[in-house]
């Protein structure tokens, strides 16, 4: 039995469909991150789970109990918000105490629990501070302590890191994961930051237009995207016009590339082949493969991103090359590009006439 279940949840705001029949089951103790562009419905999903929004249809249940019609304050959810949601008039300790107090717990138990929670987020010595005396990262840790203090059934994190600067974001991300595994709490995290989603979660749910496009492990989502949308949204992709040749082969400007993703396509179809930058291999000179000219080299530490303009298709592709190898490449140099199609994704190309957005010239 899953800890948190969405059952074909649909939610609209006027003409806008935020959730289009969302089905999702979070297993006990699991951390699932919902990833998607803004407006894909991920935050709505979280707010429906918290009870802040009411689903138009469908149901939400926690540990098998239907909570669809339960008001927010009667649900047992811990929520951390994107913006700092601490009560500015209360100290850190009283903020953590807030939920315990509304539950009418005896004060001795409350004090003990507040101390425990602040210890868990390593802020025991700041109990008497006010929120405005804390840094952003500290405020979010207090918010986490406050959410966990009530021993919720599910922890809901609504972009908890997006208002923080890069360094704090990274350390707090690991901190959240550490606390989540220590407490063993079922967690749903919403984020638009793919690095965050892939780095922290047991499973990643990629959402688009109110639907779950793919729900799988971070590695699976990256290496075996279920759709062109997922492929493009997670990581970066090169897009090469191609034609399906056979069961698992496509033709890119005369080069045959073996790719299992062509199996579902009808031979002869025009497609876009989506290939990860690390699946392109560059060789100096004129070896077999697609010919092109290096246009740029961007050093990124371990890898270097090399931009290559292909002769035949006149498209720009990016290749990730190990920096030790890339040292030999300079802009203007002729290279041949070889494509490993094992992880590539086929997308049926739109009809050529729709490719251009300019109106047809008047006759």
């Amino acid at each position, binding site marked *: 039995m899953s800890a948190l279940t969405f059952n074909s949840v649909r939610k609209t705001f006027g003409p806008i469909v935020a959730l289009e029949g969302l089905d999702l089951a979070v297993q006990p103790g699991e951390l699932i991150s919902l990833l998607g562009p803004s407006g894909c419905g991920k935050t709505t999903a979280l707010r429906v789970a918290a009870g802040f929004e009411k689903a138009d249809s469908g149901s939400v249940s926690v540990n098998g109990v239907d909570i669809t019609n339960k008001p927010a304050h009667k649900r047992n959810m811990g929520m951390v918000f994107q913006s700092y949601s601490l009560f500015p008039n209360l100290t850190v300790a009283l903020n953590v105490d807030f*939920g315990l107090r509304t539950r009418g717990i005896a004060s001795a138990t409350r004090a003990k629990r507040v101390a425990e929670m602040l210890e868990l987020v390593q802020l025991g010595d700041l109990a008497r501070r006010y929120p405005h005396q804390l840094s952003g990262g500290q405020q979010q840790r207090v918010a986490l302590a406050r959410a966990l203090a009530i021993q919720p059934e599910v922890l809901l994190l609504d972009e908890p890191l997006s208002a923080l600067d890069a360094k704090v974001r990274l350390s707090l991300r690991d901190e959240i994961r550490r606390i989540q595994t220590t407490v063993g709490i079922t967690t749903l995290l919403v984020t638009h930051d793919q690095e965050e989603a892939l780095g922290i979660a047991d499973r990643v749910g990629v959402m688009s237009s109110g639907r779950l496009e793919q729900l799988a492990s971070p590695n699976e989502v990256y290496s075996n995207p279920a759709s062109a949308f997922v492929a493009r949204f997670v990581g970066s992709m090169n897009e090469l016009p191609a034609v399906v040749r056979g069961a698992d082969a496509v033709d890119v400007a005369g080069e045959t590339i073996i790719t299992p993703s062509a199996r579902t396509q009808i031979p002869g179809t025009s497609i876009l082949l989506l290939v990860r930058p690390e699946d392109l291999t560059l060789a100096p000179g004129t070896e077999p493969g697609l010919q092109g000219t290096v246009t740029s080299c961007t050093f990124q530490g371990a890898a270097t991103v090399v931009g290559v303009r292909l002769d035949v298709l006149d498209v720009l592709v990016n290749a990730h090359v190990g920096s030790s190898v890339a040292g030999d490449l300079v802009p203007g140099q002729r290279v041949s590009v070889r494509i490993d199609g094992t992880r590539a994704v086929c997308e049926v190309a739109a009809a050529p006439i729709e490719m251009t957005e300019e109106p047809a010239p008047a006759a």
Partner: protein
Amino acid sequence: MAFVENSVGAYATMYAFADSEGDRPTTPTPASRAKRFGRIVPVTIMVLCGLFFTLPLLAMARFSLQNVPMIHLGWSTLFKKWSFSGITRAFGEQGFRDGLKLSSVLAVGTVVLTLGLLLPTALWVHLRVPKARAFIEFLTVLPYVIPPIALVAGIRVIKPHARWFLNSDLSLIPFYVVLALPFTFRALDAGIRAIDVKTLVDASRGLGAGWVTTMRRALIPNLRTAIISSAFLTATVVLGEFTIAQVLLKRTLPQFMAEYQSREGQGGMGLALLAIVATTTLLAILTLATRKRGQAQPISRF
């Protein structure tokens, strides 16, 4: 501020030079003259405004607090025979005490009713129908636009049908609530917009608090400044209102003051001066007290 005014002054003179003398160089450079000009103008305006406000008050003070016949009020008598006897005599009047009592009751009643109605409304608008905010704001400024005399005409129409209501002194409260609307709604609205009400409400409800607890523990403490200022502004409106009380024949403090003024010119003027000083002091205290409160500060981000 000073910088802005200076530069505006400087531009003005530069244009003047361009018009009259073209590009010919002049002995006192345009910049230095502009600078001096730019300083003189704001200072002059300040002094003029200051005199405009203080002279009548000084005149009031001399008329009401000096026991010198008006014909002799000149420079030579500036420091003679100052006394508060006019005001203390007014304090002794039964009408003064009754008026003060009634006006105080009305002020408290109006503040309570105003906050009771407007705080939930402002929050509800903010949380549920933010699009209606502009409309509500427009509604609340209507008492500004519609002259009180129109309200009074309205009262005349309903008077024969609602004597049981209008006979009570407390019947002024609903009218005062309406008159205070332009001030109170804005004060509350500004306070609500200064904090992230939506997130605070969500956080509170997510932690198991119902609406009452949310209001009591999460919202009202953080809106304290706004609530206090709107209460003060409401009280100020009530303590100064004359027209409606006159029409409904209520013996409020402003009524007494007008009546006393016609009977005892000096003491009446003294009371008026005292009212101005008291209100100003109250507003000054309010401004200082609310500025020091830490809660209304925006929540720091980093």
